[in-house]
C-alpha cells in the first residue's frame, strides 16, 4: 500500500517534471522581491556552490577525474576580474568572460602533463598546480603580492544583481550537465563512470571525453569564482587558491550523491545551511562537516540522492535512454 502510494506520487512528479521545474524557476526569480536580504544571500551562496559542485561532480562523478585543484580556476577567474577591472577599468562582463577563457587555456596547457598521471597522482598533481599558483600569485608584484585587491567595480552592484548572476551560473551549470549527459558525450561519460576499461574497448575515446569535461569544468568554475569575488569584493591569493574551495565541492557531492545530477542539488542546500548555523563555531565547523561526511559515507555511501534513487528507482533529471 505504502509502496504503491510512493509509485503513484513518483509518476505524478515525472509527468509534471517540466511544469515543476518552470514553477520552481519562477519562484526563484521572485525571491529578491519578497524575501529578506539574509534569505537572498543564502540562496546566492547556494547557487554559487551549486555551480562549483556540479562541475566537480562532472569530473569526479562521471569522467573519473578526482581533482583537488579546482581552486586554481576560482583564483584565476577572481584575479582576472580584479586585475582587469582595477588596473584597466575593463567592463565587468568581459572581465568575467576573459577569466573563463584564461582558465580554459590554462586547463588545456596543464592537461598535457597532468593527464599522464593516473588516479591518486592526478589528484595530487592538480592540488600541487593550485598550490604553485598560490605561491606564484603571492610573490607577484603585478597582482600586489599577498595583499590582494578590492574589486571596487563591484560596489555598483546590489545584492539583487548578484542574486541573478549567481542564479544564472547555478542553474546554468545544472543545465550544462543535463545537456551533456543527454548527448553523445554523456553516454560515453556514463560508460566511463561505470567501467573505464570496458568503455575504452567499446570505442569510447576516454582521453578526449575527459579532456572536454576538464575544460568545461575549468570554464564554469572560473566564472562562478569571478561571481563569488564580485560578491565578496575582496580577493587574496591564500583564500582564492585555497583548497577549502575543493573541500566544499567534495563535501557537497559526496553527501548529495556522486555521479547523479540531483546529488549536488541536495548536497549544496545541506552544506550552505549547515555552514550558516555553524558560522559562530568557526573552529569546529570543519570538524562537524567532516564528521557528517564520515558518518554518511558509512551509513549511505551513495549519498542522500544516490540512496533515495536506489530505494525508489526514481531520477528526477534522468539522462536515461529508451
Amino acid at each position, binding site marked *: 500500500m505504502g509502496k504503491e502510494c510512493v509509485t503513484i506520487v513518483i509518476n505524478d512528479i515525472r509527468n509534471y517534471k517540466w511544469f515543476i521545474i518552470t514553477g520552481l524557476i519562477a519562484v526563484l526569480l521572485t525571491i529578491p522581491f519578497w524575501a529578506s536580504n539574509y534569505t537572498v544571500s543564502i540562496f546566492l551562496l547556494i547557487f554559487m556552490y551549486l555551480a562549483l559542485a556540479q562541475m566537480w561532480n562532472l569530473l569526479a562523478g562521471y569522467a573519473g577525474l578526482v581533482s583537488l585543484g579546482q581552486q586554481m580556476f576560482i583564483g584565476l577567474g577572481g584575479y582576472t576580474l580584479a586585475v582587469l577591472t582595477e588596473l584597466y577599468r575593463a567592463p565587468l562582463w568581459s572581465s568575467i568572460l576573459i577569466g573563463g577563457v584564461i582558465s580554459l587555456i590554462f586547463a588545456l596547457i596543464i592537461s598535457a602533463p597532468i593527464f599522464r598521471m593516473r588516479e591518486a597522482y592526478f589528484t595530487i598533481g592538480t592540488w600541487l598546480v593550485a598550490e604553485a599558483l598560490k605561491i606564484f600569485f603571492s610573490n607577484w608584484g603585478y597582482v600586489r603580492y599577498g595583499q590582494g585587491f578590492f574589486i571596487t567595480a563591484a560596489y555598483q552592484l546590489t545584492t539583487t544583481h548578484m542574486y541573478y548572476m549567481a542564479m544564472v551560473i547555478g542553474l546554468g551549470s545544472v543545465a550544462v550537465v543535463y545537456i551533456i549527459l543527454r548527448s*553523445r558525450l554523456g*553516454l*560515453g561519460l*556514463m*560508460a566511463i*563512470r*561505470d*567501467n573505464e*576499461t*570496458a*568503455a*575504452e*574497448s*567499446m*570505442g*569510447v*575515446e*576516454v582521453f578526449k571525453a575527459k579532456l572536454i569535461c576538464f575544460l568545461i569544468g575549468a570554464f564554469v568554475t572560473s566564472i562562478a569564482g569571478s561571481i563569488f569575488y564580485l560578491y565578496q569584493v575582496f580577493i587574496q591569493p591564500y583564500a582564492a587558491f585555497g583548497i577549502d574551495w575543493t573541500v566544499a565541492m567534495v563535501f557537497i557531492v559526496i553527501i548529495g550523491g556522486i*555521479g547523479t545530477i540531483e546529488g549536488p542539488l541536495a548536497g549544496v542546500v545541506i552544506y550552505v545551511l549547515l555552514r550558516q548555523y555553524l558560522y559562530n563555531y568557526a573552529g569546529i565547523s570543519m570538524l562537524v562537516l567532516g564528521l557528517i561526511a564520515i558518518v554518511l559515507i558509512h551509513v549511505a555511501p551513495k549519498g542522500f540522492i544516490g540512496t533515495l534513487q536506489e530505494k525508489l528507482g526514481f531520477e528526477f533529471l534522468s539522462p*536515461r*535512454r*529508451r
Partner: protein
Amino acid sequence: MENVLIVENLTIAFGQLLAVNSLSIEVREGEILGIIGPNGSGKTTLLNGISGLYKPKSGSVIFKDIDITDFSPSRRCRLGIGRTYQVPRTFEKMTVYENVLVGGVYGASLSEKKARYKVYEILELTGLLHKKDLFAGSLALLDRKRLEVARALATNPQLLLLDEVAAGLTEAEVNEVLRIVKYIKESGVTIIWIEHILRTMMEAADRVLCIASGKKLICGNPKEVLAAEEVQEVYLGVEEG
C-alpha cells in the same frame, strides 16, 4: 581465404613472467578460431594483446593489413575488433539498452537514432529485449554474459573476441550461447573464441589452437587437436592434478 588478423611473435610480459611467449597466429576471414589451454596459460592475455588492453613487449598485431600494434583499444574497436570480458564488465548503473547503445554510438560510430534499430535487433537476438530497461547491475550471470556479447556486437565488429562466454553456465544456457555464436558467424563475422569447455568448442570451431604457458602447442582442426598427445597431457596434467 584471406587472413583478417595476423599476430606475429607476440610477447606480453608481467615482470619476469612471459604470459604470452612469442606467439604467432593467423585468423582467416569468416572462421571461428577456438583457443583452448589450461588456466593461466595466457589465453586472456593474448586476447588483451589483440584488443589493445596490454601493450606487447615485442611482436606485432596486424588487422586487415594494418599494423595496429600501437593503436589504442578504442581505435581498434572502431576499426572493427569487438570483444567480451571473461569476468563481465558491464556498465552497472546504465540500463541494458544503454549498455548496448554505447557500442552502437561509439564503436560503430552511429547516431543515437540510427543505433536504436541496431540495438533493438541485437537485444532481440541475444534474448535481452524484455530486460532492456533493467540496470545491468541487477542482472544474473547468464544475462551479463549475453550483454557482453550484445555490446560487442553493437560495435559492428569484423572480428569478435569471445573470452569464456560459456563458462559457468548450465547445459541449456551453453546451448543458448552456442546458438547465438553460430548466428553471428553466419552473418559474416570472424570469431576468436576462448573456451575452457571443450565440447562447446568442438561443435562450433573451424580450427582450434591450444596454448600452454604462453606458447603455441598445436593448431588444427578440432578433432585433431583434441586427440593430440600434447594436448591430452597439459589438460589431464592440470585438470586432474
